[in-house]
């Protein structure tokens, strides 16, 4: 059997499934297949988590004066109050001394 006969026999036309009409009538309902919908959901969830993580990281770093001048006793005092002088602030003590 040559290749042309083989292709003619195995690439015959088929009947369209009945669901096709419903998909054409209601394109929004069926436009995405389940796999693609799942992929979109996962992507959206990932973007949401990254956004939350990004905003939290930004919030943690939103003490610009403290970040800019961490060793300045005046800034430490302004932001931390009396806690600026506890045992953990060794570098601050150096400054004060």
């Amino acid at each position, binding site marked *: 059997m040559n290749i042309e006969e*083989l292709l003619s026999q195995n*690439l015959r*036309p*088929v009947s*369209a*499934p009945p*669901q*096709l009409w419903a998909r054409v009538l209601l*394109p929004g309902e069926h436009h995405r297949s389940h*796999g693609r919908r799942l992929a979109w959901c996962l992507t959206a969830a990932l973007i949401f988590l990254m956004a939350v993580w990004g905003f939290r990281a930004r919030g943690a770093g939103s003490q610009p004066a403290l970040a800019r001048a961490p060793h300045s006793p005046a800034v430490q005092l302004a932001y931390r109050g009396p806690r600026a002088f506890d045992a953990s602030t060794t570098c601050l003590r150096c400054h004060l001394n």
Partner: protein
Amino acid sequence: MELVMDDREVIEACRRGEPDAFAVLFEANKDRVYSIALRYSGDESEAMDIAQETFLKLLSQIQTFRGEARFESWLYRMVVNTCLDRKRGRRRLVPFMEDLFNVFRDTRESALQDLMRTETREHIQRAVANLAPDQRIVVVLRYTEGLSYDQIAEVLDCSSGTVASRLNRAHKLLERRLSRLREVKA
């Protein structure tokens, strides 16, 4: 549902926005569109997406059909463009896994020399689905729709020589890819 109206009447009615006329047009062409989509993509779900997209385009662009070309050629061009627009890399994970599984299954069953007809068909369809898009669409239009070289050339907007050349290359590639299968069958 039968195509009771003349093609031209149906198209005119579609252009006027009559939903029944679109149903008639859909019914008359659904198998043709779905067959091309399925043979081109090699995947039922992808074929449904292509067929749906084609009919939605048809619905929105029927106003632009002026009747200068034959309606069939216009529709073929629409489904072909939809097929070619879909990226090759869009193959889903499931067919990929299926291919991977088949590689192992093929080696195990190659000694049996008793391939079932459905499996043979799957092999051929997979080989066609792996052709380059320009060769694949020519093969599908030729063997699924039975179009002549001139008709294919009209749909693809190229010369008959180009069609012949693409088909020839596709034949050679398919012969090479399917040679093992044919040896087993013989």
